[in-house]
C-alpha cells in the first residue's frame, strides 16, 4: 500500500487570476494517466519549502486530464502557491474526503448554495449535474460574494445564468455603483426559487454562519434536513485521519467530511469552539 503522506509533483499548465486574492490553476494530470475524483473532494497541495494546504478540487470530474484548484491567498503557503507560474511543479496528494451526493440527487430538484470561495468545491458538482442535466429536476444556484469584484468564475456564471434549465441568482454584501443585482445575504435568495421542497437536495458551502442560516431557511421552506448537505472546514495536516487536527465532534473532517449531511453537522455547528 502506498504512503498516503507522499506527494507527487504535477506541473502547472495554466494560471487564472479570479479576483483580488483568488486564483485558479490547472495541473497536468496526463503523465499520471488522469486524476479521478468525486465532486466535493479535496487534495493536499504543497508549495516547496513552505508547507501543505487542503484545497478542494474545483474542476470538471469528467475531464481527468486536467486537475483544477481555486485558491485564496491568505497565508504563507497559499501565497507561495500564488507566486507559482505556468511550468512550475506543485506537490499533490489526494483525493481525500467525502463527496457531494450527486447520485442521490438524481430525479430530484437541486439547490446549490455557495458563499465566497465556497463556490469552488461546488463547481465540480455543478459540472457533473450539467453533464447529465436531464437526470435532475430543477437546478437552482444561489451564490453570495462580498462585493461584485469578489465574484468567482464570472464568465461561467454568466453562461449558467443564460441557460434555460438553470435558475441562478447572485447577491453581494456590498454593491458598487455599477451593481444592478441583489444586495444582502445569500439566505434571502432562497425563497425566490420554485422548488418542490420535499424532494429537493441542497448542497451548501461557505462560511459556517452562512451554512447555519441557509440550512435553517431551507428547513423552513420544507426541505428535509436529511437532504441538506454542508461542507465543513478545519485545520488539516494529513488528510487521512491520523494527525488529529481536523477533529469536529466525533469525526475527522478530512475523512468523515468535508461533506456532511446536515443531520450530522448541525449539532456540531451550533457549539462554539468545538
Amino acid at each position, binding site marked *: *500500500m502506498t*504512503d*498516503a*503522506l*507522499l*506527494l*507527487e*509533483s504535477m*506541473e502547472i499548465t495554466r494560471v487564472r487570476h479570479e479576483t483580488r486574492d483568488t486564483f485558479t490553476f490547472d495541473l497536468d494530470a496526463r503523465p499520471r494517466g488522469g486524476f479521478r475524483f468525486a465532486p466535493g473532494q479535496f487534495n493536499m497541495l*504543497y508549495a*516547496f*519549502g*513552505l*508547507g*501543505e494546504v487542503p484545497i478542494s478540487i474545483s474542476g470538471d470530474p469528467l475531464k481527468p486530464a486536467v486537475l483544477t484548484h481555486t485558491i*485564496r491567498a*491568505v*497565508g504563507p503557503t497559499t501565497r507561495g502557491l500564488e507566486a507559482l507560474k505556468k*511550468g*512550475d*511543479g*506543485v*506537490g499533490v496528494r489526494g483525493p481525500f474526503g467525502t463527496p457531494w451526493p450527486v447520485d442521490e440527487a438524481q430525479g430530484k430538484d437541486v439547490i446549490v448554495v455557495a458563499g465566497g470561495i465556497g463556490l469552488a468545491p461546488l463547481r465540480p458538482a455543478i459540472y457533473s449535474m450539467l453533464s447529465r442535466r436531464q437526470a435532475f429536476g430543477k437546478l437552482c444556484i444561489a451564490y453570495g460574494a462580498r462585493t461584485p469584484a469578489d465574484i468567482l468564475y464570472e464568465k461561467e456564471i454568466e453562461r449558467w445564468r443564460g441557460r434555460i434549465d438553470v435558475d441562478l441568482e447572485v447577491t453581494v454584501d456590498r454593491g458598487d455603483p455599477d451593481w444592478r443585482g441583489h444586495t444582502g445575504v445569500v439566505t434571502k435568495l432562497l425563497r425566490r426559487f420554485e422548488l418542490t421542497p420535499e424532494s429537493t437536495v441542497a448542497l451548501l458551502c461557505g462560511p459556517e454562519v452562512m451554512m447555519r442560516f441557509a440550512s435553517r431557511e431551507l428547513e423552513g421552506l420544507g426541505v428535509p434536513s436529511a437532504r441538506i448537505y454542508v461542507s465543513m*472546514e*478545519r*485545520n488539516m*495536516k*494529513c488528510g*487521512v*485521519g*491520523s*494527525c*488529529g*487536527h481536523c*477533529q469536529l*465532534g*466525533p*469525526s*475527522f473532517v478530512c*475523512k468523515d467530511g468535508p461533506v456532511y449531511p446536515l443531520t450530522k453537522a448541525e449539532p456540531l455547528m451550533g*457549539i*462554539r*469552539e*468545538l
Partner: protein
Amino acid sequence: MDIWSLPRSRLGELIALLRARGYDVVGPTPRDGAIVYDSIESDAELPVGLGDEQSPGQYRVVPRDDGAVFGFAAGPGSFKRAFHVPEERLYRVQREGKTLRFVPEPVAPRKVALLGARGCDLSALRVLDRVLEGDRYRDERYAARRSEVLLIAVHCGSPSSTCFCSSMGTGPRAGGPWDLALTELTSGEHRFVVETGSPIGLALVRELGLLTASTLDKIHAAKVPVVAAQRITRRLEADGLGARLAKNLDHPRFAQVAERCLACANCTQVCPTCFCTTIEDFTDLDGAGAERRRRWDSCFNPEFSYIHGGPVRPSTRARYRQWMTHKLSSWHEQFGSSGCVGCGRCITWCPVGIDITEEARAIASAGTSEKAT
C-alpha cells in the same frame, strides 16, 4: 497452559536471549530522575530496587528495600514512542528544474521486544493500533515499526495513587495477547512466575530451560494483581461516561478547569494514546532542497486548530474540552473504545494537578442531576 519460574538471577539471560534473536529490547530504565522506557542491553539497566511516589502534579523515584525490578508504576514515557516516534523525517524534496522530486525516508525494519509492559500500556498500544492501523488508511510508518513486536507483559503489583486502570478494565492484570507475562515475587527467593501466550513465548521458555512454577508460587502470583487492584483508590465511572459528557459540552466546569489549566500540553505528551502530529517544513540553506518532518503535536497548542482567520479553539476551555471529551467520549464513536486506559500519567504530570477523573465525574454527573430536577 504451563506456568514457569524464572529466578531473578536469570532475568539477564532472557534479555540476552532476546538480543541474540535479533530483538531490540525496550524496557524500563531510570533516567533523569524518572523511570522511562528505552533500549536496554542488560538487566543492570533496569530500575533495580526503585519504585515511585506519584500524586497529582508530583512524581518521585524512591528506593525500595525488596530489590524489585518492576516495582514502579507508569512513568512519563510510554511504549508509544517506540512506534509512533516523537519526531521523524517523512521525505526529502529535491528541486529538479521546475519539478519536485519527493524521496521518502525509509523506516528501518526492527524487531522490538517490549519488556515489562503493564496492562495499561498494552491496552494503549491496542488503542493506537486501531487509530493508526485499523482505520481506512494505515499509517505506514507506524505499521512498519509495529510489524515485529514481542510483548513481555508484567502483571502490575505496584500501582501509584494516580492509577485508575481497574476502572477502565485495563489492569492491573495485563490482558492478552502477550507472548510472555511475568509476575514478580520478591518474598523469599526473588523470582518471576512466567506465563506463555504464544509459540514464540513458549520457545523462549524452552530455550531458557525454565522449570515449572510451584503450585504455591502460582497462587502467590495470581494474588499480586488482585492485591494491587485493592490498593487502587482512584475511580472513574466509565459506563455510559461518553454519552454523559457529550451532553454537557457547555458545562461551566470546563471554564473553571481552564482557569487552572496552563495549556502546557504535558498531558498529551505523556498520554500513551495521544496520537496527534503535525508536519513541519525545512528548507536547505542553498534553497535547492527541503524536507518535511512529522512530530507530535497537541490539541492544547493554539495553532493546532488554525484556519484562515484564527484558531477554531482560541480558549483554553475549548482546548481542554477537546482533549478530555475526545479521550473519554468521541473516541468511542471514532474507534470503538475509550481513548483512556487509566494509567494516570496525565494526572501525575499535570503541573497544576488537574485530575481527569475528578473533572469527568463533575461534568458527567451534572447532566444526570439536571435531568433529575
